[in-house]
């Protein structure tokens, strides 16, 4: 597991997040293991119907051209795409022809780690549209709490201080002004101590 892994979100929580984005034409990526794609697509469709009363179509496509052809007839449902086999050229095609990707409801790319890395390289515009809406399932990445703990560990090593040292310094209003200390207090849930 890499320290830079995408934070983990399980399908029900992902569906809840997506319910907040319905109608916004948002683009989302969900990174899973290769043998979990079909189940993730089916589960996500079911969860979206349950938590958001949002109907979703699953598109099983081999490449970008097939996707663009199917998208044109997908009306106003959310679209969940099996993008587990998309290669660099597929992402580049979608990036170039992104005007044809335009869709009124949510578009979710369910893919695997290597394919997503290719997206980041070959499709800068699509990556930009994804924004921060990129998640992974449990076996592919750390939980959000793992992310928080890892960052705290890095900060402790950087400053050679403990969490309590930082809290004490902040309480006495003698904490250095480095932005890392503000981040440290936030991660400890003590943003109230930020001057």
């Amino acid at each position: 597991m890499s320290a830079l892994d995408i934070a983990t979100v399980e399908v029900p929580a992902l569906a809840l997040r997506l319910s907040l984005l319905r109608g916004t034409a948002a683009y989302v990526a969900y990174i899973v293991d290769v043998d979990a794609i079909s189940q993730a697509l089916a589960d996500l469709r079911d969860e979206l119907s349950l938590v958001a009363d949002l109907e979703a179509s699953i598109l099983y496509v081999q490449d970008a051209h097939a996707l663009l052809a199917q998208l044109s007839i997908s009306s106003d449902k959310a679209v969940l795409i099996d993008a587990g086999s998309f290669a660099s050229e597929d992402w580049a095609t979608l990036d170039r022809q992104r005007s044809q990707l335009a869709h009124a409801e949510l578009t979710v790319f369910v893919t695997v780690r290597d394919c997503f890395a290719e997206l980041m390289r070959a499709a800068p515009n699509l990556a930009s549209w994804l924004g921060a809406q990129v998640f992974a399932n449990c076996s592919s990445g750390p939980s959000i709490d793992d992310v928080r703990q890892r960052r705290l560990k890095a900060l402790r090593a950087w400053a050679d201080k403990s969490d309590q040292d930082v809290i004490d310094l902040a309480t006495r209003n003698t904490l250095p002004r480095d932005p890392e200390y503000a981040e440290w207090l936030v991660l400890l849930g003590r943003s109230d101590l930020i001057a």
Partner: protein
Amino acid sequence: MGGVGSGKTTEILAAQRGLEALDDGFSAVYLDVSKQHDITKMRPGAVIVQVGIALAQRMDGKLVQEKQRLIEIAHGYQTQRWYEDDDGDFESVPGILSPPDVFDDDVIRALIPLRPVVALMRETRPHIVVLIDGLDRMTDMAAFDRIASHDVKALNGLGIGVVFVGPLRALYGLDRIITQRFDTYQYQPWIDLAKGHSGREFLSSVLARRIGDDLLDPDVRDALVGSSGGVMRDLLSLAQAACVEAYMSGADKLGLDEATIAINTFGRKHLQGIRPSEAAALKRVHQLGDFVQTSEEDLALLMTRRVLEYRDERRVRYAVHPTIEPLLDILG
């Protein structure tokens, strides 16, 4: 020209609205040439024929023949060759919007029916400007150069003003010579937050219009603005993600905790697929502010906005995207 998410399309649409509002003499037509045509197969004539069809569609049923001719040129047609002792053979003429056999002749063919379309438009609106979006997605700079030197030149010859959204790579290396084909070019920059307060105030105001002060404290707004690196699209993405985090955590308002999670998530996504040489380049930019585009890999760092370039009349400055900065130590 400008980087991904810099607002090029927004600006060009605003220009169209502005031109249309100037006076009755202006007709500004917006056209995304990538919608009807795969731009990897771009060739001279491809832009003109689409401009012609777009203009002809405004003719309210007039010049039907010319419009039809443009469509045929765009998509291909059958023509009949007559021989002395024969009834004639049909042959298929390929359209411009598909792989060509000849370049220059296609520009000429498209110009013939376009001229009466332009002439009729000018009877009511003498000044015609076309604003062409989508060509920024071209990666073949030689093809982009041919469009500039054939289609643009031909349209200018008809007295039509042309505004292009061009590819960012045309600003770097040997491709920079392409910009000389245009009377002028406008670079759509990122907002440099290190340069005075106006940039921060502008982005803060954009955020304030979307999320009121009762839901978002000034220090949280500052954190989101700072983490955007002056990229409007990233600011809105971060704010949206932070709002989702606030809802998921049951918070009454968007706090630093939620903003931090959104910023961290964004940064992690931004570093997916990074190669060791790219990681080294990012660290060098962060430590020294030093960045020289000598390879496609370097250009990719700009295109993917892992490195942000800030330009004004006097200087160019480079920085890594703020959401990546805290994660650089983790990179190998």
